[in-house]
Every structure is written in structure tokens, then in C-alpha cells.
């Protein structure tokens, strides 16, 4: 058990006492399959007796709905947008992630500061400003980056219910009115930022172009050593046949 470690200064109001839980982050661009894998991983971890809490962007009590409303107006400059996301992130870190880790749970987080940093960087904010801002973030025990390329991403986004989203296509900062061209341009820039961050922060990169079952197997293998030494509540929950068929065979089960 280690005392909480932050990227920058230890933020005010956060205890220095060690956290028995684990922080596992799944990063990657929109449409890469993060939420599918989060759902599978939650079930997998719970079936093995771990208590899991999951959270993702815009789910804070404080700022979640406020961001939705602000984005609907399409009048946001990148700095305000980033500070709103930082507020939302901090509120979730303080109220969801840290309490879960104090209680010895696995916090399974759908997108962390890295998505926010990548979005800010492609919109022209300096690395220095962005890194300072998010210095208040807790260093995760594991960051898995789901990597994809444009060729595989486009059909997934097209077949989703929302299609090309205004913000995810970079319509707010790219000059062209062409949504498809902007989507490709924006996502290409984002992917480059993600890969740069993955190298800088030593993420575990998983090739997400492959079928769900193969990606899931890699995710389980990456998470296994991180949670291994944790206390479990015993396995009362039974995993579904779907999860059982995909996960790697587990020692001792």
C-alpha cells in the first residue's frame, strides 16, 4: 500500500494516508470500445471478488450537467471548456475515486486526464499549461490505452447511434465546414497526442483494431498483476458465459 502520489503538488484537502484500493484507467478516443470493455471488466473483477466502482467524464454531481448545457451552446473557448472538465474531474476524484480506493475497491475509470490533455493540446493550448492544470491528478496504478487507426475508427463511429459528434469532429476549432474531413483531421491529431502520452507515461498499449474477445483478454492480462495482491470479498457473483468464454483461464479457479 502506497501513500497517494500526484503528478504535481499534493492538492489541499486530501489525506496522505495510504490507499488500499487500485486505480485502473482505460484511455482511448471516442468509438474505440472503452465502455464495452469497462462493462466486461467490471463483471470480470466482481466475479473474482473485487469491489468495483466506475466513473467517466461528465459524471460529477457538481459539474456534469453544467458541462452538457455549456457544450450545447457551442460558444466555449478551449480554456473555459478545459477548466470545466477539470472541475468535473476533480469532483469525481474527490467524491468517487478516492473514497473507493480508501475502502479498498478497484476504481475502474473510463478516460482520465489524458483524454482531456489530448483534446486541449489539439486545440492549441500549451503542454506546459495543460500539464500544470492537471497536476492535481492521482497517478493511476495502471493506464491501458486502447489504440486504433482512422480506417478502423470510422466504421465504428458511423455505426454508433450518435454518428459524427460536433465536438468529437473538432467542428469547434477546425476551419472547414466538412464534418467528415474534420473528423478525420481531428481524430488523426488526437491519436498522435494519445500515442505521445502513451510513450511519455508508459501506458500499456492494447491494439483495439482486433475483435472484442482478443482485446478483452489483453486487458485482463494487464489488470491481473495490478489487483493480484488486493484483498477480495470472496467470489459470490457468477460471471456470465460471455465473459467466461473470453477471459484468460485463471489460476486457482
Amino acid at each position, binding site marked *: 500500500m502506497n501513500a497517494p502520489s500526484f503528478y504535481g503538488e499534493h*492538492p489541499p*484537502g486530501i489525506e496522505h494516508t495510504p490507499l488500499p484500493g487500485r486505480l485502473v484507467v482505460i484511455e482511448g478516443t471516442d468509438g474505440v470500445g472503452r465502455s464495452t470493455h469497462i462493462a466486461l471488466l467490471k463483471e470480470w473483477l466482481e466475479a473474482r471478488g473485487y469491489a468495483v466502482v466506475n466513473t467517466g467524464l461528465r459524471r460529477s454531481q457538481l459539474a456534469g450537467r453544467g458541462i452538457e*448545457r455549456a457544450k450545447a451552446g457551442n460558444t466555449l473557448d478551449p480554456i473555459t471548456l478545459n477548466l470545466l472538465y477539470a*472541475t468535473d474531474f476533480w469532483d469525481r476524484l*474527490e467524491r468517487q475515486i478516492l473514497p473507493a480506493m480508501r475502502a479498498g475497491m478497484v476504481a475502474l475509470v473510463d478516460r482520465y486526464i489524458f483524454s482531456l490533455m489530448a483534446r486541449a493540446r489539439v486545440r492549441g493550448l500549451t503542454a506546459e499549461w495543460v500539464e500544470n492544470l492537471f497536476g492535481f491528478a492521482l497517478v493511476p496504478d495502471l493506464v491501458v490505452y486502447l489504440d486504433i487507426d482512422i480506417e478502423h475508427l470510422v466504421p465504428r463511429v458511423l455505426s454508433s447511434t450518435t454518428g459524427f459528434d460536433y465536438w468529437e469532429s473538432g467542428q469547434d476549432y477546425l476551419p472547414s465546414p466538412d464534418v467528415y474531413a474534420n473528423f478525420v483531421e481531428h481524430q488523426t491529431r488526437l491519436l498522435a497526442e494519445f500515442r505521445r502520452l502513451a510513450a511519455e507515461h508508459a501506458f500499456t498499449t492494447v491494439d483495439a483494431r482486433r475483435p472484442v474477445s482478443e482485446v478483452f483478454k489483453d486487458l485482463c492480462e494487464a489488470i491481473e498483476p495490478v489487483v493480484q495482491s488486493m484483498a477480495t470479498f470472496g467470489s459470490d457473483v457468477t460471471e456470465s458465459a460471455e465473459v467466461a468464454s473470453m477471459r484468460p483461464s485463471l489460476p486457482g479457479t
Partner: protein
Amino acid sequence: MPRSENVLPGRLIIVEGIDGSGKSTQLDLLRKWLVNQGYLVIFSEWNSSPIVKGITRRGKRKQLLSPMSFSLIHAADFASRIYSQIRPALQSGAIVLADRYVYTAYARDAVRGVNRAWLRRVYSFAVPPTLAFYFDVPLEEAMRRISIGRPELKYYEAGLDLGLHDDPYESFQKFQGLIQAEYNRLVDEFGLVRVDATESLVHQQQRMREIVRPHLDGAMRQPNPAPVDALHVAGLLGHQRSERNGTREVSA
């Protein structure tokens, strides 16, 4: 700086000070003086961004704000006003008057334990003011002024989240004292113009105007006379306008 800095032709004049220092009154008198001379004056108030203030209000009402979220949401409000109001006005050459600026965040957030260097880097997108006034008032005098006009102290306003004292008034006094100590450091660090806020209202305003006057050359003026002039010319009283917009503009 997150973005390249252009030279802005406008003027930015800001006031700072603890609650009860009289800074808002003085800024309002300055605004009237500038408007009467025909200058185009834009007024920006702390915590007033239409995009952000709803979140802040919700956080305060439900007491959801911690030192960090308090700091972050105020930075968001400030950024929103910088990019949608203050910067465009300065780019056009107008005079912007701001009641509280980055120094309020530096003082309050530092008292709540937020790292000072981090705050300065977060707020590095702020436009440096042309003039920044600090209204210096003894704590006892500020407390006396506030106890007259204010019915009840709010939770964050009184600094009750800091756990300095259970009684709102006692907490407020301690909180303001700590903020004042931070302000005193900021006056030196950023060269704020100190105004003795125990002087008479008129004397303070005269001093302010003397300091502001040399900075007004070439500032943007109102292109057309205000609507009230049209009413005078036509011999009308403006009942319709005042019913629609309130009486503020007509009586100005």
C-alpha cells in the same frame, strides 16, 4: 501563456480588496465619470459568466465545493469572461472595468491551501491590467461596514468550509484577516496601487481619477449619443423604454 499575446488597444482597470473595503462603490463612481466623458465602458463582475455561474451557484447551494473545486470553477468563470467579454472589448479599444480580478483567486484560494505557483500558472491566460487598485482598509472597519448592510453571511462567503470557527461572523472575520494578509503579499508582488480606503469617499475617488486620467488617451468613445439624448431632443420622458428595460439606462 497558452496562446500568443497580441497588443490590446483597450484599457483594463481592476479593483481588489476585502469585503467592505468600498472597492465596488469606487469602481461605480469611476464608471459614471468615464461614461459621462463619452468613453465606451464595459463592466465585468467576478463570478458572472452566463455559462459557468449556474454550476458555481449549485456547488455553493449544495455545499459541494472543496478548496480545489472552488478554485477550478472560479477559474472557469474567469476564463469564460476573459474570452467572451473582456478580451473582445479590449481588442476593440474599449475601457474594461473589473470588480475583482485574478488577485481575488490568488488570495482566497491560497487561504484555502491551494498551491500559489499552480494558481499563477493556471491564470496565466489573464490579460495583465493597465491599472490595478487595492483598497486597503483595517479589518475592524470593514467588519463594521459589513455588519450594517448585510442580513446574513453565506457559507462560503464566511469561509465556514475552512473550519476556522463555528460562528459565521467569527469565521468571516478570521477568513477576511487571512485574505488581507495574502493581499498584502500580492500588492508587492504585482505592484497593485494601494488606496487608503479609510479616507473620505470623495478623496479616494479624486485620487483614483488622477491615476486613471493619463491612461485614457485614445480609448474608444461611444459612437452615438446614448438613447436618453434622443428622448431629450424629442421632449419625451421614456416611459416605454423604462417599462421594458427598467429605469437604469434612462436615468443614467
